[in-house]
């Protein structure tokens, strides 16, 4: 459907369009990071393309990709309301490499680039205000990078000290007291408490150990 844009791009930029693909009607062009702004300006201003609507800018982390390929894909989605076509533009950059900003092409890229910076730590050169947008200034690291530990929290308000309490386990235990609780159905019928989530199973074990050492503490765990 948007093949026309891809053809225009190939005619205009030739070798700098590294790869193109069409998956179920979605046209993609992989471009060289050096041509990032140039290609974006072209697809917006060219009368045939007219991709005036900036839809989204995001990134994907591939830490275990083949070593010759850089770590991140930065993905731009843009569409043309007038020509009824849309295109995905991708580029690949390495960790620590920065990309020129698209805010001068589409003003809407401002917050999207801040979000990519916030989540992946990719810097956009020339961005007017590159700060964290969703997370807080105190946050260390970039949570959507694959090497960020999946369950690591960085509390903004220090947690209260609660004796005998296990983090991430409710006082009513792992079961929510509902038929659709997190406990497995057939196990529940058999009176077992095997968990769906191994992390929670570990916490249940910790809780048991705690209640054995300090009898009568730990309070109101729901009995069935």
């Amino acid at each position, binding site marked *: 459907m948007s093949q026309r844009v891809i053809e225009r791009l190939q005619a205009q930029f030739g070798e700098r369009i590294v790869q193109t693909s069409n998956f179920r009607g979605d046209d993609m062009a992989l471009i060289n990071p050096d041509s990032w702004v140039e290609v974006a300006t072209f697809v917006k201003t060219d009368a045939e393309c007219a991709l005036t609507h900036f839809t989204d800018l995001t990134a994907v982390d591939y830490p275990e990709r083949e070593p010759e390929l850089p770590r991140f894909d930065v993905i731009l989605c843009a569409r043309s309301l007038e020509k009824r076509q849309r295109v995905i533009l991708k580029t690949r950059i390495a960790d620590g490499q920065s990309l020129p900003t698209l805010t001068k092409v589409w003003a809407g890229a401002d917050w999207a680039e801040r979000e990519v910076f916030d989540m992946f730590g990719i810097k956009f050169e020339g961005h007017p205000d590159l700060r964290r947008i969703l997370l807080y200034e105190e946050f260390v690291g970039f*949570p959507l990078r694959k090497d960020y530990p999946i369950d690591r929290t960085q509390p903004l308000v220090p947690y*209260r000290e609660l004796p005998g309490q296990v983090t*991430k386990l409710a006082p009513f235990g792992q079961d929510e007291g509902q038929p659709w609780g997190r406990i497995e159905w057939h196990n529940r019928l058999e009176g077992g408490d095997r968990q769906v989530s191994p992390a929670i199973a570990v916490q249940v074990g910790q809780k048991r150990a705690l209640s054995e050492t300090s009898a009568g503490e730990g309070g109101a765990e729901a009995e069935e």
Partner: protein
Amino acid sequence: MGEVKVLESGESGFATTRFEALLAWARKYSLFQYPFATACCGMEFFSVASSRYDIARFGAEAPRFSPRQADLLWVVGTISQRQAPVLKRIYEQMTDPKWVIAFGTCAACGGFYDNYTTVPGCDKLIPVDVYIPGCPPRPEAVFDALILLQEKISNGNREPATVPPRELEGLSQLRKKVNA
């Protein structure tokens, strides 16, 4: 109010009680609620508060949208790390005596969110009086929580409590069958 003693009935009758008991009785039926609704549990809260289930029947009629006028804080939904300072500040703005209900599993322990964004339970920030399990809880469970809280208020009990699960009848029978 088990403490009330009616000395003389009729038009000129009077009763005696302890001051604390009278105060607790007044408090438990005039809970002004502040709904801190952040996520999908909020929909359940609307259901509980509106005419079909009607929480006003239990003496928690008026929602207040200023914490300074409220004495019951409903934490309804997931609390993210970014919201934590806001929740704490709202709790601190409420005047004593104040109570907190953790509505749903996310408010109680973070629910299935186990990542960088979510506070694993609002009890990590503020003291909670009653926990309601469920994702989301049924309105009946919410009423159980309110009644439990009212009991706790009248007893002067500030220990955290949990709403016990209401098991489906079919499930109980099935369990009996399996265990037999």
